[in-house]
């Protein structure tokens, strides 16, 4: 297993290099330069030219890339062109926000997706199956930004049950945190529930068809015992894997939800940075989420091996 981890870490290095190169190229392909955007209406060509020179934006892209890479290797991520704040500081500031939201969303997604998937598999082909699918799918089929705004208008403005926006750290004020998390986590979680449901359903179906469950049934075990004890445990393996990967994707995937609920996480940071051509910030955050994604994939693999003893020997 140690070998696997080591192997993966080694493989991750070229992957991250490609990510950074790709994002770098992509950003510089964006029309407009950061100072032109940020100057907005107050642009004055001389100042912009001077700033470009100061920040070495006129150097060839390759030179700029290696300069950036050289700094990153030394742990220096540069500063935001827009606000002058250190990129690493920004990342550390936003990471807990994003992790908290991602965790809450996964709870919602699993809370809806798992039971729906299990029920749909056990009652395959019946109207219960379709109803469960429809429930799980409904979250996926409504654009996040729209659902978010509707929820704010209903639950925050009309009913005043929940705060409309913001971020409260869970460990400093758990109740406040849950209040602010309910709506965004619901919006994001329902969107993911369909994936969880689908995987749970097909994994359950596969397990239910396996010899192993057939044997259990043949032994005359009660159906609920078969499902709970034998089928579910095995069916959950791929679901856990999927959840881990989805969690990794959530790190930067909550862009619009963060925008609507004004949650200061990675998503909002990165979209603003893209639109403002704040190169260093985009670069740093994408690198960070890519690491998160790769890490989560590794965790998924490790979990897979852990819960699946047959694979342990490999």
């Amino acid at each position: 297993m140690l070998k696997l981890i080591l192997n993966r870490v080694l493989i991750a290095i070229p992957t991250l290099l490609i990510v950074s190169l790709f994002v770098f190229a992509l950003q510089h392909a964006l029309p407009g330069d950061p100072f032109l955007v940020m100057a907005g209406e107050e642009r004055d060509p001389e100042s912009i030219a001077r700033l470009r020179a100061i920040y070495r934006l006129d150097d060839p892209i390759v030179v700029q890339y290696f300069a950036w890479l050289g700094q990153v290797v030394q742990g220096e991520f540069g500063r935001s062109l827009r606000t002058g704040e250190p990129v690493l500081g920004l990342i550390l500031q936003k990471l807990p926000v994003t992790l908290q939201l991602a965790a809450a969303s996964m709870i919602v997604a699993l809370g809806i997706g798992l039971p729906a998937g299990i029920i749909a598999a056990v009652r395959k082909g019946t109207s219960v199956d379709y109803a469960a699918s429809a429930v799980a799918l409904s979250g996926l089929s409504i654009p996040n930004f729209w659902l978010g705004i509707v929820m704010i208008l209903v639950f925050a403005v009309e009913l005043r049950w929940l705060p409309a926006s913001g971020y409260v750290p869970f460990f400093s004020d758990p109740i406040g945190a849950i209040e602010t998390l309910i709506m965004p986590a619901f919006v994001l979680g329902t969107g993911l529930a369909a994936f969880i449901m689908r995987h749970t359903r097909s994994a359950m179906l596969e397990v239910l068809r396996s010899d192993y469950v057939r044997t259990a049934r043949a032994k005359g075990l009660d159906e609920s015992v078969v499902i709970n004890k034998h089928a579910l445990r095995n069916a959950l393996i791929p679901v856990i894997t999927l959840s881990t990967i989805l969690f990794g994707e959530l790190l930067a995937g909550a862009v619009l939800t963060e925008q609507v609920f004004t949650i200061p996480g990675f998503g909002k940071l990165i979209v603003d940075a893209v639109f403002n051509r704040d190169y260093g910030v985009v670069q740093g955050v994408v690198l960070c989420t890519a690491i998160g994604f790769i890490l989560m994939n590794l965790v998924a693999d490790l979990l897979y091996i852990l819960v699946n003893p047959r694979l342990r020997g490999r």
Partner: protein
Amino acid sequence: MTRPKLTSTMAACALALGVVVALPTGAAAQTSTLRIGLQEDPDMLDPHRARTFVGRIVFKGLCDKLFDASPDLQLVPRLATEWSFSADGLTATIKLRAGVKFHDGTAFDATAAKANLERARTLPESLRRSELATIDGVDVVDPLTIAIKLKQRDATLLSQLADRAGMMLSPATFGGDVGARPVCTGPYRFVERVQNDRIVLDKFADHWEAANYSFDRIIYRSIPDTTVRLANLRSGELDMLERLAATDVKSAQADRSLRVLFTPGLGYQGMTLNHANGDLANTPFGKDKRVRQAFSWAIDRAVINQVVFENTHPPTVQAFPPSSPYYRKDLVVPPRDVAKARALLREAGVTAPLKLEMMITNNPVDAQLGQVVQAMVQEAGFDVSLRSMEFASQLRDQQQGKFQLSRVGWSGRIDPDGNIHPFWTSRGGQNDGKYSNPTIDKLLTDARAVYDQAERKKLYDEAQTIAQDEIPVLYLYNQPWFYATSARISGFQLHPDGMIRLGGLKRQ
């Protein structure tokens, strides 16, 4: 995870939901905190390097400046108490307020003022350099007096010092990270900033006007979506917001827990036209003023106001706002005249329909405005296609001449020069359409050296008369500033500059 665990997780979720719903929410804010919703996240909080409009709103709390402008755009004292020009107009002598302290406890005096002006005009990253370009040097006359020496007469200088160029930072902090932790003399001092989320300021007890500021803490939150921003005000997460959407004005006015305030802005909204920048200018539209006149006649500015802005954005045909002493009352907005527009097109020898492309910014309001204009001018013989651009790309294309018409505006400056000089003069920094007229160049450059308001107005009036005929920039409407506050907030002073002045604001 097995079934029982799963059910218990779900039960916990349901329980949590129940608990939360049962709890009273939203009322947790302390009474002495004022929470303001901004449309964008400000940029660097270093007044010499800052660029954005929202940044200026935050500076209003954080940094005092030498002067301010009254709502009718006359200079009023802040850190400067008296000022005068020498007879030749080349030296401005400014007396400074006594007993003013920076947030770090150091005293503000003439040496500090000089250091700030020097930083603003020499720091390589400074964006104030062009604003202060006419300054030759700054002398400390006595501990509370400075003399600014000018290379040439400059009537715009003092109004620049009524904005970011006149903001004073503690010179002791110049070596540090000014943008991240600004130390000024304003009524509130910097506490923390969470980028894209909030900027927190606390009351500065030693401020020279501290009694006038009743809130202990100010929190600026950036919430870009107008619908969401208003929702946050209505749900009690904010106490006030800036830039209420025109379409939300009615519903906000109907809400008795809110108060809607507005005032005409300093700037204008209109269209930048390509006269001579690159190949795309090679159209009768860029070359022949009659075609531009026809376009203007074909637009019903009143209908734009009604359809897009619910009658909240007054139409205009000039660059100066009604609050400005330089505003020309005689330039009334003419009614639409399609027949006249067609006649002008014929006269110019244009075979209709004339194909044109109009660049708009990719937001719903601009889209709506663009479509309204498109439909109107079509009747006069213009076939306008819309090209929607992300703002960054729009600016780039505009600078490079890759446009024919571009829908942009200008938030406006206190001094008239700021609203037209950069746009109309041949070498103006914002003259993206490369409009050029030697008479206009001369008038506007001469006006910069005239200190007497009445004399100066004559020059601007003359330039405006030419512009009415030639249409260097097409003006559509004045952008008012809309604010919504909780009904419990009172004492807000409206100002055409769109800033939020924290003095006098109270919660009942």
